[in-house]
Structures are given as structure tokens and as C-alpha cells.
């Protein structure tokens, strides 16, 4: 799960990680009031969307007076912000963060993440802050300091020293940096983050260290133990069909193709998308209905796939094995009737009683085509959308 910068900074505040004074605003009036409350200019007005690259897209602006705030907040609120992470359609900006301007001496980079390869916590830091870190990693990898932390011992002082000296911090900044990293690390572990990133982390002229930006992603599998974090979820930032699917415990991702598909199991679902593409069509979605694939799941799946106007045909691929195909076929027929499926559907299924299942599909009176295997299914789908 992703959250906004202002929410991440709220958590930073709770864990005593220094941030500039600031407040979120949902209207121009609120933005002006927030700027006033900061007690001095300049202030920075920052668009709040779940995507990086906001500055380049025109979503972050400096304001030197209350009049400036009115102007820039008016520009940013309600704009469709396009960045390299939003895709060409961009995101509608509904809130801004108004923050005190700082006297910045140096911009740094700092992030914490679970490293899948080493199975350790990974701290990444760089003197090349404020830039795209993937670019830094590709072009000047020597500018990135990496420190791995064994989860069984946790963060030790020497880890912090390795990062701090690696960043060439001035001696006076070492103490505040130690406190910042220690607190940030505690947040990272306690809240089950899949990423904590500060870019830039700034060093001020008076040797303070503050998080000028804040990005936190959470491990979805751990949200059950962080009910308070769930309140940060912003449905405006998600695709409406994906929101509906998640309410039905379906794993659905909307894509821009024309063949809807419903599959049990994530790996087979990806492979099915690939098959659709190879057959000359293009997948409209990823949808994993889970290993079991109950009639209710299939019905909800149909409804969500059909809500996408681009869908010209549907491929159902269920490798049941233990599952009984006659029961599954019955479920598909009922769901197709209930949801008034208006496009051709190819059903490939495998498992116990598969012949009986195919007979039920054929005799249903609906536009349901049985496929004997994957090759057959791909060919049938391709002929539908051509």
C-alpha cells in the first residue's frame, strides 16, 4: 500500500524524524491559512499524489507571499499532474502540502528496504540527493553507499557510522543524523514498510538534517497488524475497478487491452496474459480468482471484467486439478446469465469431470466456447477479436 507524502511525514513526526514545519490543505483558502500558520515566507506548495517526479511536472512550487500561495495553490489544486510515474493520463491533484522553505546546504538520498536477494534489511544512501536514484545507480554506482543489516541483530551503531561517514557528513551533523536514522529504522521495522525513501534528505546551513520529502510503501501482507495505517488508504489514487475487485478479495489489475481474462493462480494468470498477446490480441486485465475459484468469485470476476468497455471477449482459464469441472462449469453458466455477459467467452478448464463440464457449457445456450487445451484456447480467443 502507498500513502501520500503528508501522511508519511505525519508518521515521521510520530517517530521523531525531523521534517520541515508544514500542513496539508484541501483548498486554496486552507493553503493560505496553512502558510500563515507557518509564520514566515518563503513556503513550498507540493501536490499530493501517489507518484514521484512531481517537481518536474509542475506540482511543486515556491511561494514568497500569501498572494503567491493563492496563485500557486490555485494552479496546483485541480490540475492533472503528469509525471514519469503517472502515465500519460496523469492524476488529478486534490490536496497539497504547504511547508516552510529551508536554507539548504546539501541534498542527500536515504532509503530503507527489505532486500529480497540477501534477506537482510538494506540501507541505501547517497550524496547525490534530489536526483532519480535509479539513474545514479546506473551511471555513478560509486556514489551509493549500501549497508546491509541482519534482521536478527537489528540496527547497530556501526551500521549508522558506515552510512554517516559514507555520506561525508560534516562532524556537527553526525549526531542529528544518527538520531534520524535510528528513529527512521525503528519506523521501518515496526510498521512493516516495504520501502521508506527520503529524497532529498537535506543538510541545512546550520547543520540540521531533515526529511524534505517522504515516501513510505507498506507490505500488504502485514497490514492486518497495522489497522491505523489502513486509514491512510486513498481510494482516489486507485483504479475504481481495482478498488471494487479488492472488496471481493479478487486480485485484479486493469490493463489497456481487449481480451478480459480470469484465471486461478497468479503465475498461470500472467502466463495466460502472455498467451493472449502471442495470439495477436492484448490482455485487458490480470485477474487471479484464487486456487479454489468458487462460483461467487467467477460471478464477481465477470462483473468487473465486463465493466471495462474495451473488453471484446473473455478467456477463462482454470486449472483445477482437484476442483470438479462440472461444478465450475455450472458456476460459469450461472454467473454468465446473472451478469448478462454480452461478449464471447472461451473457457479452458482442466480437472475432475472435465468432459461433463464441457457438455454443460455447450448446452447452456450462451456464447460459451470450450477449449481443449491452452493452444486451442489461444487460437479461439484470437479468432474472436479479429
Amino acid at each position, binding site marked *: 500500500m502507498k500513502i501520500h507524502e503528508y501522511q508519511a511525514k505525519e508518521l515521521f513526526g510520530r517517530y521523531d524524524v525531523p521534517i520541515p514545519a508544514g500542513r496539508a490543505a484541501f483548498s486554496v483558502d486552507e493553503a493560505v491559512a496553512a502558510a500563515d500558520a507557518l509564520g514566515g515566507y518563503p513556503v513550498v506548495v507540493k501536490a499530493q499524489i501517489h507518484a514521484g517526479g512531481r517537481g518536474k511536472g509542475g506540482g511543486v512550487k515556491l511561494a514568497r507571499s500569501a498572494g503567491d500561495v493563492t496563485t500557486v495553490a490555485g494552479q496546483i489544486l485541480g490540475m492533472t499532474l503528469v509525471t514519469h*510515474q503517472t502515465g500519460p493520463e496523469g492524476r488529478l491533484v486534490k490536496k497539497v502540502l504547504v511547508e516552510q522553505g529551508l536554507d539548504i546546504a546539501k541534498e542527500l538520498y536515504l532509503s530503507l528496504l*527489505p532486500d*529480497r*536477494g540477501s*534477506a*537482510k*534489511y538494506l540501507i541505501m544512501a547517497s550524496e547525490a540527493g534530489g536526483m532519480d536514484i*535509479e539513474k545514479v*545507480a546506473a551511471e555513478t554506482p560509486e556514489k551509493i553507499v549500501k549497508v546491509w543489516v*541482519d*534482521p*536478527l541483530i537489528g540496527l547497530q551503531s556501526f551500521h549508522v557510522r558506515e552510512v554517516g561517514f559514507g555520506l561525508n557528513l560534516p562532524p556537527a551533523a553526525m549526531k542529528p543524523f544518527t538520531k534520524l536514522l535510528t528513529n527512521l529504522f525503528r519506523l521501518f*521495522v515496526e510498521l*512493516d514498510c*516495504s520501502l521508506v525513501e527520503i529524497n532529498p534528505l537535506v543538510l541545512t546551513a546550520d547543520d540540521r538534517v531533515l526529511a524534505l520529502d517522504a515516501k513510505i510503501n507498506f*507490505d*500488504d*501482507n*502485514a497490514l*492486518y*497488524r497495522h489497522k491505523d495505517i489502513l486509514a491512510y488508504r486513498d481510494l482516489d489514487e486507485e483504479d475504481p475497478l481495482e478498488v471494487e475487485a479488492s472488496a471481493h478479495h479478487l*486480485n485484479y*489489475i486493469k*490493463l489497456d487491452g481487449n481480451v478480459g481474462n480470469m*484465471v*486461478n*493462480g*497468479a*503465475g*498461470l*494468470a*500472467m*502466463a495466460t*496474459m*502472455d*498467451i*493472449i*498477446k*502471442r495470439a495477436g490480441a*492484448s*490482455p485487458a486485465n*490480470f485477474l*487471479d480468482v484464487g*486456487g479454489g475459484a468458487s462460483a461467487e468469485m467467477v460471478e464477481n470476476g465477470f462483473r468487473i471484467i465486463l465493466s471495462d468497455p474495451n473488453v471484446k471477449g473473455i478467456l477463462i482459464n482454470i*486449472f*483445477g*486439478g*482437484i476442483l470438479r469441472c462440472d461444478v465450475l462449469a455450472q458456476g460459469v453458466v450461472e454467473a454468465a446469465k446473472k451478469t448478462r455477459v454480452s461478449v464471447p467467452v472461451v473457457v479452458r478448464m*482442466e*480437472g*475432475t469431470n472435465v468432459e461433463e463440464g464441457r457438455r454443460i457449457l455447450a448446452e447452456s445456450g450462451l456464447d460459451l466456447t470450450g477449449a481443449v*487445451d*491452452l*493452444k*486451442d*484456447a*489461444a487460437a479461439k480467443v484470437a479468432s474472436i477479436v479479429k
Partner: protein
Amino acid sequence: MSIFVNADTRVLVQGITGREGQFHTRQCLAYGTRVVAGVTPGKGGQKMDEVPVFDTVRQAMAATGANCSLIFVPPPFAADAILESAEAGISVIVAITEGIPVMDMLKVKNFIQNKMLRLIGPNCPGIITPGACKIGIMPAAIHKPGGPIGVVSRSGTLTYEVVHQLTGQGIGQTTCIGIGGDPVNGTNFIDCLKAFEEDPDTRGIVMVGEIGGSAEEEAAAWIAANGSKPVVGFIAGLTAPPGRRMGHAGAIVSGGSGTAEGKIAAMRQSGIAVCEDLGTLGEMCKRVFGKS
């Protein structure tokens, strides 16, 4: 022959009294797997069908000589269940559970690193040596005993598809193992490739990967340096959009790494016959393994 498990493996099921645990324990028993015990805290002394249930893994091991555990415990308690088995001295732990927090698995992975045990999974279908034992949730009927092919995969139903096609071509399997779709897991591709390499009955290997991480690239490098047996590979996710988690917690292309294209290229470079059309994988195996 087989890898990791065989007809003598003595299995205890953690979470045996839950719905999944009961259903799959019965399926395993029906296949001939020696399920000797179950563990559900608070239900010690009961029986699941004929299988005695214990409160702790230590008790179950002491009473039944179990040496393998099969875990169906829900995600919030699954890491604890793995650690309990590890501390009790179980030698093969098969964790089916999907949805264990990454931070929990980081601790588990580091804790078991220097122990003489093998963790398979989590978030996996388990392991089967056709004709000998099934320790997992895969449908038994699609498998064909007698080898000569070993199958290793990060996926569940995708593995069933692959095995089904092998069997359809008359190609049997020595052992089929699902290593799981999570970013942090126990046994990896290389562990399985090594074991298949050393198993005299395994004459070829099918390796099924997907987007995310670099396990396939590392496995390809290992094969280039050490592999003597023919390998057929498949990678799911050519059409997956970057930055999105495709169902499996570990299936994500991030920052341009972990792509299907990159994995396929690395595998081809290592001499692996990569199949890009899943519908024809069985036929390709017939061609490749037929020659060996």
C-alpha cells in the same frame, strides 16, 4: 530416486484441524504419503481421522518420529510455526501459507540459514515425488511416476499446467517442487538444480520462473557453470506492467530489473531452451528431452 523427500518421509501437518489442513491431509494420505501426526495447539490428544494430533511439534516428533512438516497455519502465525519446526529439529519444512509478512520471513530466513534443514516455500504448492509421496496441495492425478524429468517452479497452478503437459507427452517426473511466489523464500532454484544434477534418475529439468527479483538469472549462471543436464525454461509475465505486483508478493518489475525479457535472455545465454508459448511447452520438452 527423487530429491528432498521420498516414500519413507514421515510427515506432520501443522494446522491439521483447519479446513485446508484437513482436506489436504486426506488427499496426501490417499496418495500414500506417511502423514504420522498433526499439530494444533490446544487440540492435543484428538485425532484427525486416524492421525494423532499434538499440541507442539516437539511432542509430535517424540511420539511419531516425524521428520518433515507441512504447514497450513494462517499468515499471522505461520512464521512462528516454521520456527517451531526448525527449533524442534525437523529436516524438511514445507510451508504452503500465502501472505506471510516479509519482515517475518527475513527473520525466519536468517535464523534457519546455518541449520541443517530445508524450508520449501512459503506461498507454494509443496513437493511431490510421483508414486512415492505428495507433501502439498497439488492435484495428484496429473503426475506420472518414474521420471526422468525434475520440475522446479515459483508458481502453483502454472506448475500444474506444465506437469500436465509433460504427462500428456508421456514424460514422467522424478520430483516436482514449488519454491513459492514470495520475495523471501527458503529453497531457491539453485538448491533444486543442484539436487536434480546429483540425482541419477533425473535426466532433464523444467524450470518455471516469473517476473521479479533475480533468482532466474542466478540459476541460469549456475547452470552455465555446473549443469550437465538439458533444461527447458519458461518465464511468466512478458505482458506484466512495471511497478505492479502481479498477485504473488514477489512478482514485480521494479526499476527496470526483474523483467521477463531479462530473465529469458539470461536463460538463453546459459543454453536453456526457453519456451515462449506455454501452449507448446510439452511438445518442446518432448523434442529437447527426447534427444538426451
